[in-house]
């Protein structure tokens, strides 16, 4: 391999990236768009879900509970109802997703028995939203319970548990704010990188075939390895820039807490980029049309990444056969690493298994890619 020819290839490729609006758009604009689309669109969160409240007691305590529903930001109290019939009507008419009914003897029951219940009626036509809304309501109620307990303890001078009981539910781990976004967005980064990476390189060799520049290029002493590296390295830089932008958005725009190690994140991202760029390159070598190559790249990256990487559907809830298949679905390793780093502060040692998976894939793909290209027309 001649460093001089390699640099010439890299320089040429970089110039072409900078001058090709299509490549540039894929490289710079698409990640931002997808980050917005997937970050907001696929989010399982709820914001300002309309709820109605029928506060039969209307005491200081119940009013403070109701005001918490409002203050959390997840719900907006659109209507206050004054009858059971009104509750039914509001749900039927689709005026609210959930109606909260506080019984007339709420405070008294709570004071005398230490437990009371709030009724919540959900519009289950949108199962997803109503399930999520239910979770959030329970979270708020749990907060109220904790306060009642603290207050009771302070008043009576003894530590008490089970004093204020308004339907306490088990809490969630690693995602205390109940933000599904924290779980989803690191996976979004993997999806975007897989998509963009393979898209970028899927065009690079097929473009040379399509434009007729390949025939002249392969008549020069440039080697297949120089062609591959000369094309992959500039796009690797682009991919890492994209990754940095997406990860920065994750932390600074979507406020996902970052608890892990930056170096581990960098290593995993570099390995994953290498895998997806290599896959795009191999497709590009085989398929001599830009359109067909980019379509195939889309298929090969998008489907496994969205469906089988654990990004949306947890792998441990898949059938065993599918779970076994996910072992060769390379994005699962990166998604696992990202979530580990972001949410659990996992260390390099904790993540050795998925990291090893990525290393194996990176070596395999680069090796296959280096053998894929032949300097021949036939």
């Amino acid at each position, binding site marked *: 391999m001649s460093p001089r020819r390699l640099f010439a290839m890299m320089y*040429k490729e970089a110039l*072409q990236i900078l001058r090709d609006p299509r490549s540039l758009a894929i490289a710079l604009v698409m990640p931002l768009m997808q980050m917005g689309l997937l970050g907001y669109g696929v989010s399982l969160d709820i914001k300002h879900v309309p709820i109605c409240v029928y506060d039969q007691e209307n005491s200081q305590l119940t009013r403070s509970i109701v005001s918490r529903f409002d203050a959390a930001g997840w719900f907006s109290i659109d209507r206050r109802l004054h009858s059971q019939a009104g509750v039914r009507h509001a749900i039927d008419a689709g005026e609210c997703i959930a109606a909260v009914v506080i019984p007339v003897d709420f405070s008294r029951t709570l004071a005398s028995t230490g437990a009371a219940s709030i009724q919540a009626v959900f519009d289950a036509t949108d199962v997803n939203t109503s399930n999520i809304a239910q979770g959030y309501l329970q979270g708020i109620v749990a907060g109220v319970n904790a306060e009642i307990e603290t207050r009771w303890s302070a008043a009576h001078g003894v530590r008490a548990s089970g004093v204020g009981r308004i339907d306490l539910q088990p809490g969630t781990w690693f995602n205390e704010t109940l933000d599904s976004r924290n779980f989803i967005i690191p996976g979004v980064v993997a999806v975007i990188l897989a998509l963009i990476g393979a898209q970028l390189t899927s065009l690079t060799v097929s473009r040379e075939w399509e434009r007729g520049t390949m025939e*002249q290029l392969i008549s020069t002493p440039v080697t297949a390895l120089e062609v591959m590296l000369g094309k992959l390295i500039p796009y690797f830089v682009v991919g890492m820039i994209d990754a940095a932008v997406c990860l920065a958005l994750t932390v600074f725009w979507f406020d996902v807490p970052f608890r892990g190690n930056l170096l581990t994140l960098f290593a995993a991202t570099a390995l994953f980029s290498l895998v997806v760029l290599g896959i795009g390159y191999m497709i590009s070598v085989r398929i001599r049309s830009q359109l067909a190559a980019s379509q195939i790249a889309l298929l090969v990256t998008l489907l496994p990444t969205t469906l089988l990487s654990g990004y949306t559907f947890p792998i441990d809830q898949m059938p065993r056969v599918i779970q076994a298949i996910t072992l060769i679905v390379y994005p699962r390793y990166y998604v696992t690493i990202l979530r580990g780093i972001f949410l659990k502060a996992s260390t390099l040692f904790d993540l050795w298994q998925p990291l090893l998976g990525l290393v194996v894939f990176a070596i395999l793909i680069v090796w296959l890619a280096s053998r894929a290209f032949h300097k*021949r027309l036939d």
Partner: protein
Amino acid sequence: MSANAAPTIRVSGLTKRFGAVHAVRGIDFEVSAGEIFGLVGPDGAGKTTTMRMLAGVLRPDAGTLSIDGIDVARDPEKAKLHLSYMPQRFGLYEDLTVGENVFFYAELFAVPRRERVARSAELLHAAGLEGFERRLAGQLSGGMKQKLGLVCALIHTPRVLLLDEPTTGVDPVSRRDFWAILYRLRESGVSIVMATAYMDEAERCSRLALFHSGEVRHCDTPARLKAAMPGALLAVHAAQPRAVHRALAGLPGVLGALLMGDRVHVRVDDAARRVPELETALRTAGIADARIDPAAPGIEDVFVALLGTPAG
């Protein structure tokens, strides 16, 4: 042409099939240093396939092929150090400037920096591309693109230059620049192989290989090919050359009739005997303004005479 020197290019029994299509059927030829060797023949005769095998981008199915003693089929990468190939379709990067394309090809062939600067200035000047260094290759005219292709092909001083119809669609001024460069290369001992569809260009080649259905049917200098043409050539001038062609084709003694724009080239077995017969036939056909002169054959005539089909 140095007849004693060992040939730079040796081709023997070269064969290439694409499925059922037998594109090149066991061709042989040799090209010496300082020769411009022309490949002439109709589309699909096997010229481009031969060029691609010479360039080492297509593997021959059979036969041998060597450039400067290097077996191109076995070691194409070594041969590529010494050759330059300009494909039929423009092969440079249209989104790179003239200067960037030249730089890229110079680097691929590891041309030393000082040599590159001097040589690219000289070549760009000869090609009339001075002052266009910063223009994108895609924004050049057809002729300028081809000349840029030649500049990139010559930046590393190759011993063999392979040109596949380099002047197709090129304006006359650019073609003249192009040929001026080729003549200078020939002086410096470069072997040039060139496929061409233009008969006036074929005339300028040192030697020609006449391709037909994947075979080289004849291979010699243009002068000797013309001398080998059977029969005598007559030019019939008339206002209605098509009518002349209709009246004369197929008459006894007429070996061939070829429409050449404003005249018809008629090849006959014996000029002295046939001219009066042709005059009679023309009068019978009602063509009064025809004039018959002896004519010097062009390569096109030779091609038709030898192969029975037009070259282009």
